[in-house]
């Protein structure tokens, strides 16, 4: 498996479960999540867990790939560029909704969570497209 595909799988397996739990908690709105400080703490725990697991995973992958020579070539760059280009549109759509539509009807944590959701969706889509680029049809790898 290529290093870029390994990283994409790592990001998917770390980010998706953590933010699924985070957004489930936000939707359920339990009583212990009522104050601003508690909400910030919840977000900090999710972001912190994602950050720590990702960094540890990346370090492990880097250690495994040491001495393998070339880590990325034109195919890797093409797959990454294709995935990033499509994820950019998702992120841009999210930015329009959060910055230009939602402020007229919502505020506070709704905006924060919507912005976070658009980032998570864009990043998840990017990594899914990278994985698909390696395993899918030739057109997806161009």
């Amino acid at each position: 498996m290529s290093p870029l595909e390994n990283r994409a799988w790592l990001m998917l397996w770390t980010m998706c479960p953590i933010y699924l739990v985070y957004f489930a908690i936000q939707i359920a709105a339990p009583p212990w999540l009522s104050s601003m400080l508690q909400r910030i703490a919840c977000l900090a725990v999710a972001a912190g867990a994602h950050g720590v697991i990702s960094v540890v995973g990346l370090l492990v992958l880097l250690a495994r790939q040491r001495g393998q020579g070339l880590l990325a070539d034109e195919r890797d760059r093409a797959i990454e560029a294709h995935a990033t280009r499509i994820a950019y549109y998702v992120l841009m759509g999210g930015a329009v909704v959060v910055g230009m539509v939602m402020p007229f009807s919502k505020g506070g944590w709704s905006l924060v969570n919507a912005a976070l959701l658009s980032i998570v969706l864009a990043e998840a889509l990017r990594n899914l497209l990278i994985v698909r680029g390696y395993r899918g049809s030739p057109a997806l790898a161009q």
Partner: protein
Amino acid sequence: MPSETLTNEIRLLRFLANDMTQAELGKRVGLTRQTIAAIEQGRYSPSLEVAFRIAHVFGKGIDEVFKWTPADGA
């Protein structure tokens, strides 16, 4: 509707070149082993520059390594 296809003889040429490994060929043309495997299986079409480099490694012309069949089969 028929579609255009790009096939190649890299697997055969590697075999004829003392069973050169995908990793060795990749190293000589600046690609990863995974990309050489993808090219051999027709899952990735390399850039023109890489195609020339691959052909050069085997001492062949690019048309002897890669075969392109247009959609109309002509």
